[in-house]
């Protein structure tokens, strides 16, 4: 049985081999699905949305892993696909709702209160609103740095931004969130 504990290079080789394609793919899913799910959940807030986008992400991985050149790390590649899929989803939602799903007055708060998989109190909702009001890139940097505990060089690979710019982004994000919490 192919284990998710095996190194990424071996899993990729087994995937490309053909005979072990599905088994290797299953191992990749087991290895990364939780991290990717929480990354998506922090961006999209609602479980159903995160679930949809996670499925789309793995479909894309299945279709494109043959072409993965291994000049980047597998998990940064997976994160990049997941991030792009989430951003696409957000754009679609914005068009559909004809407004921002993040900064619409009380929109996010109402959605969180209505979500059966959100157990936070008003303070937790306020924190989510504070993060949601950040520009998209700052939100990504903050979530991935703080909650996903990704290193700056990993973030740099995923977001294709310099380490310096990412550090500045994180710093600004923290200040803006703190300011929002102070003012509300």
């Amino acid at each position, binding site marked *: 049985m192919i284990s998710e504990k095996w190194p990424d290079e071996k899993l990729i080789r087994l995937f490309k081999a053909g005979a072990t394609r*599905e088994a290797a793919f299953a191992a990749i899913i087991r290895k990364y699905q939780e991290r990717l799910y929480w990354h998506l959940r922090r961006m999209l807030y609602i479980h159903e949305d995160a679930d949809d986008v996670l499925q789309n992400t793995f479909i894309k991985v299945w279709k494109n892993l043959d072409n993965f050149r291994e000049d980047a790390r597998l998990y940064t590649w997976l994160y990049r696909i997941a991030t792009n899929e989430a951003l696409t989803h957000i754009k679609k939602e914005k068009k559909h709702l004809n407004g921002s799903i993040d900064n619409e007055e009380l929109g996010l708060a109402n959605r969180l209160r209505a979500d059966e998989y959100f157990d936070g109190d008003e303070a937790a909702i306020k924190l989510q609103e*504070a993060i949601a009001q950040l520009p998209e890139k700052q939100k990504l940097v903050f979530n991935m740095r703080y909650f996903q505990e990704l290193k700056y060089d990993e973030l740099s690979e995923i977001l294709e931004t310099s380490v310096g710019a990412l550090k500045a982004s994180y710093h600004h994000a923290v200040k803006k969130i703190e300011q929002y919490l102070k003012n509300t």
Partner: protein
Amino acid sequence: MTTDKKKRNEELKRTAPRLAALLQRQNPFRIPDGYFEENLKKLPLLTAESPTPDFADGRKPFRLPEDYFENPDERILSRIKDSEESRESALPEGYFESLPHKIINRIHEEEKAVEVRKGAGRIRMIRSRTIRALAAAAVLAGLVLSYGILTRQSSEEKVIAGLNSVSTAELESYLTDQLDHLNEEELNTVIDPDESLMPDYEKELINEDELQDFILEDMDITTIEDIL
């Protein structure tokens, strides 16, 4: 908690205490029970998007009909025939009957459109912003140039008129005054000291012998005696 996260939390407590306090609390997002295990069961649905060349146990998923490679010509020809028939039947009913009428109508419409274009007003509003801006700039440049030429001409005329109004006496007096201020050096820049302004009369003077010859040439003896 990793060392890195500890450091980040400590820094947050210093720079953003409210945020740090909220982040310490439990994750408010929950997931359905068994969600991640269920995901793996969905794997065949995910991989159905793109077919696999082989099953995991090595079986090939593709099968061929019996006698597939026998009599390929017949199969191909019958397929061509089928596609031609289906192409014919894909035409709408009465297509060829109505076609001339459609073509004539279209010709009339196009002719009308040409007439409208011809009869359109000669004055066409320039809608392009760029063209309007360029035209305005050209007019402005012309105006500025004209003004410059006119003012130059008028200033030259003024100078000439001014000079004409000055009398000769005033001019002489002015020049004399200026000469007093001129030193030899300045004068020498104008006049070559080796060259005199005055003509060299000495060179042109006739000597006594020449004069005598001239006088005696046309005079007879009686005239000379009268003088003496």
